[in-house]
């Protein structure tokens, strides 16, 4: 396995099952295949993060589209908002 230079896309393609008395229970996987697999994982995580950012903006847009139309007279002052969540002591002059 140490002679292998190029990782495969599949982690298990070249894996060999080993274990005491030929009963298996463990896998021997070429290091290059493990490295290739970890690279793929990082790539997937990056893609997922990008998609999560997109989803975040979509959800936000949905929420904001209703609220942006609220008439100004219906908005709460900071003092009213803070009081509604028991945080009046946190609002003061900046």
């Amino acid at each position: 396995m140490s002679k292998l230079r190029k990782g495969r896309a599949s982690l298990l393609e070249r894996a060999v099952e080993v274990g005491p008395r030929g009963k298996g229970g463990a896998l021997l996987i070429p290091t290059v295949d493990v490295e290739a697999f970890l690279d793929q994982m990082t790539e997937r995580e990056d893609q997922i993060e990008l998609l999560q950012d997109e989803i975040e903006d979509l959800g936000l847009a949905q929420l904001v589209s209703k609220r942006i139309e609220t008439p100004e007279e219906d908005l709460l002052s900071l003092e009213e908002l803070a009081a509604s969540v028991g945080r009046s002591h946190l609002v003061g002059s900046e």
Partner: protein
Amino acid sequence: MSYTVKADPGVTDDLRTLKAQQADVPLDWRLSDDEVELAIDMAVRLMNSLRSDPYQGEVLRGKERVLEGARRLKFDPLDPPPVDHRGAPRPRMRLVWKNEPDESAIGLVRVLAVCHRWDSRPYKAAASRLADARRRHGKEGSS
């Protein structure tokens, strides 16, 4: 200079339901009960700080038109915030507001939302669509 900051009534709901919302959040994004209380403290403090500086955070320039011109500030009750798989900070909360009528002449700072960055609604909608498709597929298969 002090700016007028007002919040949408929905922001009260955002803060009051923050604890209950955590049930839908994956474990690695979830806020503990103590963190929820700290997050509410931070949100109120940040809104108060908009009175002197409404230019904080980043201007949203996404594909969603309704968000254009709004500002977002990511924050987290933990300092430092949790990190992502690359080790980069990943604050879990966001404060969203809009400077009206525009950034160069602010008459009102409208706070639009304080929410967790994990939004489970699109996932639930997708899961529901998937379940519908499976049901339809099952019916077609049995007919």
